[in-house]
């Protein structure tokens, strides 16, 4: 397979093309790193300075870009705290459970959500997700064009998550807006803090309703859950919701948007998947490896340690560059090529280790049915206007606008 055009590695990256500048000022949120630049620049970091100190974002941080180093950090919860999980921090006052929780709390919080997000449970939800996807696709399929990010990726994943949480239909668009303000900081840093407050206020009300009248949803499950015999407090419930809303739909929507762009740029890949839909799950994994919408997460050093020869001190902040890791040639042969037969494909698109994304089976199920239903209904998918594609940066990168054209089958 060829390299997708959107990720053209030769696009200039301005000041980040200067090795000295990027070593000292690397910024994983910079809009100067859109398209293929991020892959190229972080690849250069991996080769030249795999553990480099950047002065971006308040007190600075260490950018870690080798797969093996990142793997080590992910596997050692005792040496590296998961809180705060982003650089800069989102602004939540307490750790977001479970993603920002450390031992001994981490397992207890994850256990509460294990059943909801398990593979069997999510397999059983495929028909629900499929019905949602079909309903959305039928609204635009006759047109021969759509903004697939706005008309399928975002509403499908938002609906699926809100359904799981128990958020009523009329409130879902509002929650989507809140999540965007938190994840993409669309209203600026101060507005992000306000959005977090609005999210807490909303789920305070919803959890009160669910305590009084439990339903078959996540908020009800949280209201009745216990860890070591102790129920979750209100703030614990809110903290879990705080991470589920942005992480539970926005990451999947972003992943899906990049994948649809890849299909639009590589008609031979689209045709291969159309001819043999059983290849779709492996293709999704490979496209996720390639695009890595969650560019990486952060850790805090809790015990002095050395990483690739660099001494790190307690309190130091690390940004783990998952995208760089997913293109590390020491682990992935010809990483710049999309190879849907890649085995093994132990990518970090969902993270790694004890904090591996809990919602990966949900994401996989949603993406699988969306691709199956699109490919079954349309041919000749292609970008309508590459200049109209909008790529948003943030803890999760993604395409918030992706106009495509297609032929209805």
């Amino acid at each position, binding site marked *: 397979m060829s390299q997708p055009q959107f990720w053209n590695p030769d696009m200039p990256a301005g000041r980040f093309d200067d090795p000295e500048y990027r070593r000292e000022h690397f910024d994983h949120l910079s809009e100067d790193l859109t398209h293929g630049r991020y892959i190229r620049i972080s690849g250069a970091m991996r080769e030249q300075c795999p553990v480099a100190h950047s002065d971006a974002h308040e007190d600075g941080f260490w950018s870690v870009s080798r797969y093996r180093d990142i793997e080590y950090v992910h596997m050692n919860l005792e*040496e590296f705290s998961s809180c705060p999980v982003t650089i800069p921090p989102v602004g939540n006052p307490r750790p977001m459970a479970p993603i920002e929780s450390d031992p001994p709390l981490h397992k207890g919080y994850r256990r509460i959500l294990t059943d909801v997000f398990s593979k069997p449970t999510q397999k059983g939800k495929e028909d629900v997700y499929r019905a949602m996807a079909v309903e959305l696709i039928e609204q635009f399929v006759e047109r021969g064009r759509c903004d697939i990010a706005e008309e399928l990726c975002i509403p499908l994943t938002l609906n699926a998550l809100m359904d799981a949480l128990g958020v009523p239909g009329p409130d879902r668009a509002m929650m989507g807006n809140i999540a965007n303000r938190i994840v993409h900081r669309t209203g600026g840093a101060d507005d992000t803090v306000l959005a977090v407050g609005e999210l807490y206020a909303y789920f305070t009300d919803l959890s009160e309703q669910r305590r009084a009248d439990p339903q078959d949803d996540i908020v009800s499950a949280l209201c009745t859950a216990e860890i070591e015999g102790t129920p979750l407090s209100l703030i614990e419930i809110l903290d879990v919701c705080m991470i589920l809303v942005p992480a539970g739909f926005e990451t999947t929507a972003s992943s899906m948007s990049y994948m649809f762009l890849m299909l639009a740029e590589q008609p031979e890949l689209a045709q291969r998947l159309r001819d043999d839909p059983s290849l779709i799950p492996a293709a999704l994994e490979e496209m996720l490896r390639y695009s890595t919408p969650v560019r990486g997460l952060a850790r805090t050093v809790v015990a002095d340690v050395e990483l690739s020869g660099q001494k790190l*001190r307690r*309190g130091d902040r690390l940004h783990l560059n998952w995208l760089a890791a997913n293109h590390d040639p020491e682990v992935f042969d010809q990483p710049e090529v999309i190879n849907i037969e890649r085995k093994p494909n132990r990518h970090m698109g969902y993270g790694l280790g004890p904090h591996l994304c809990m919602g990966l089976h949900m994401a996989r199920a949603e993406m699988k049915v969306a691709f199956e239903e699109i490919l079954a209904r349309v041919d000749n998918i292609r970008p309508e206007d590459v200049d109209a594609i909008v790529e948003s940066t943030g803890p999760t990168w993604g395409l918030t606008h992706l106009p495509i054209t297609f032929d209805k089958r």
Partner: protein
Amino acid sequence: MTVSLKLEGLYPEVVTPLDGNGAILEREFIMYVQQLARVGWIAGGVVVNGTLAERPDLTPEERVRLVERARVAAPADFDVIVAVDADDAEGAVSAVNQAAEAGATAALLRPPAKTARALVETVDAEATLPLVIRVGADVDAETLTQLGGLGSVSAICTDGGDFAAQHAAIGESAAHLTAADDASLVDHLVGGADGALMATAGVGTVAWAKLLRLCRDGEADQARALFDGQLAGLGPALRGGQDAPRGVLVKEALVLQGLISTAGMRGGDVADDAQREDVRTALVAAGLLPG
């Protein structure tokens, strides 16, 4: 028995989060300690079971449990100092050894000045943990010298009095910590203090840590400016005058910052509206809450 420990940095005295029925919220306690541990190398550890933590109202089992929880919450090189009653030597030895079994790394005693030397000598001989001795302004130089010379006394924390004279009396025999949270704090840190026990440090630890870092870097003027500009109001606001019970206003501040969920205390004490507003104002001034 001689056991020692190098004490250096900030040692926030932590509160005990309680629910509406007075039960300890263990998970909140763990998160709270972990938040403090993440501040960085400059936070040396925490003090648990202090008066701020409502020690008189905790059962012996709860005190042990809090030490255990703090231990599992914190990294290995993060000290868990347990405050114990120092009314009599026998009780203190028992409490210190129990804390040692629970995983504490040091014990904090605050003996009365008149009996300090005799009591600490007994504990020093029989206890299995390094000791931090907190003394008031009324302790004399000779006693400080003698206390510092005891094998298990790793640090002496002075609370008031002539810091320079105290520092000279302690010499190199033990670390010297300060309990000051007023303008003299910077003078103490620049003047040789190894660190600080802080009743307010659970509130705004990052800001206090910056202050300590500036002092370590010899930037006394910047440290004073930071204190005057942001932190000066915190101590008085969190003490709240003579009428406010120890801990209640610190809990209010932690709730306002979203670090714990309720400000309830076992004795039923709560802040009044005026005190709560003072706390909020001090937090805003310190940059810990939006204005």
